[in-house]
């Protein structure tokens, strides 16, 4: 009984998540909003979901595509990931270094150091 109820709950959870996740576009589809967004630039009249992959890369207007197109010019970095984590989203990375520092201080405070 103690293991039966969580098993049923897990199954229900997994099933509902799978049902939800099947609503995603297939893997690799360039029309996923995370990649292409819902907007397009002034150069075209087509909506994003009517475009081919090449047209998406050229005309769709989203943050991801902006990073892919303009990060070398905006930041001077060749590597796009570095351009994002150290320039566009640099505030996150600062706080992330702080998280590591917090973990160090936390471990020191929990374990303590040997007194020499």
């Amino acid at each position, binding site marked *: 009984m103690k293991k039966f109820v969580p098993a049923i709950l897990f199954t229900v959870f997994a099933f509902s998540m799978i049902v939800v996740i099947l609503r995603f576009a297939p893997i690799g589809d360039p029309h996923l909003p995370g990649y292409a967004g819902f907007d397009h630039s002034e150069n075209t009249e087509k909506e994003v979901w009517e475009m081919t*992959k090449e047209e*998406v*890369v050229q005309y769709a207007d989203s943050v991801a595509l902006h990073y*892919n*197109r303009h990060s070398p010019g905006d930041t001077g970095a060749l590597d796009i*990931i570095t351009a*994002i984590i150290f320039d566009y989203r640099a505030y996150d990375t600062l706080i992330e270094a702080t998280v590591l520092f917090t*973990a160090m201080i*936390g471990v020191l405070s929990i374990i303590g150091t040997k007194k020499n």
Partner: protein
Amino acid sequence: MWIKMILYRIDYIVTVILFCIGLYALILKPNLIKKIIGINILETSVYLFFIASADVRLGPATCQWAGPSEISNAAEVAHAAAGHVPLVNPIPSALILTAIVVSVSVTAISLALAIKIYENYGTLDTRKIMRLKG
């Protein structure tokens, strides 16, 4: 038809299965170290989800598209990027780099706690160390 539907999204389904395995280890395993492993499996499943959603079919990864030797100025790079090379989505990778560091921190803290609990109680079994009844 539905097999095609599932096969095209197989990474997402693996994500959900991994998520449930991690949740199982976290909630039902009595050993504290196994619970920590459960947290790590959970986090890994979320990373897999992010990276799978970043893919664009036949698109090169963001690091693959140009080397420093081939391209020498920003205008050329911008031209190469705008319209000719369908690179994958770079944002999930960047977010996951942050999330990994957070996961490392949480793991470090939880391992430190596990060591201290083992010293104080002599066991890692939650069924034996449960004194507080919330």
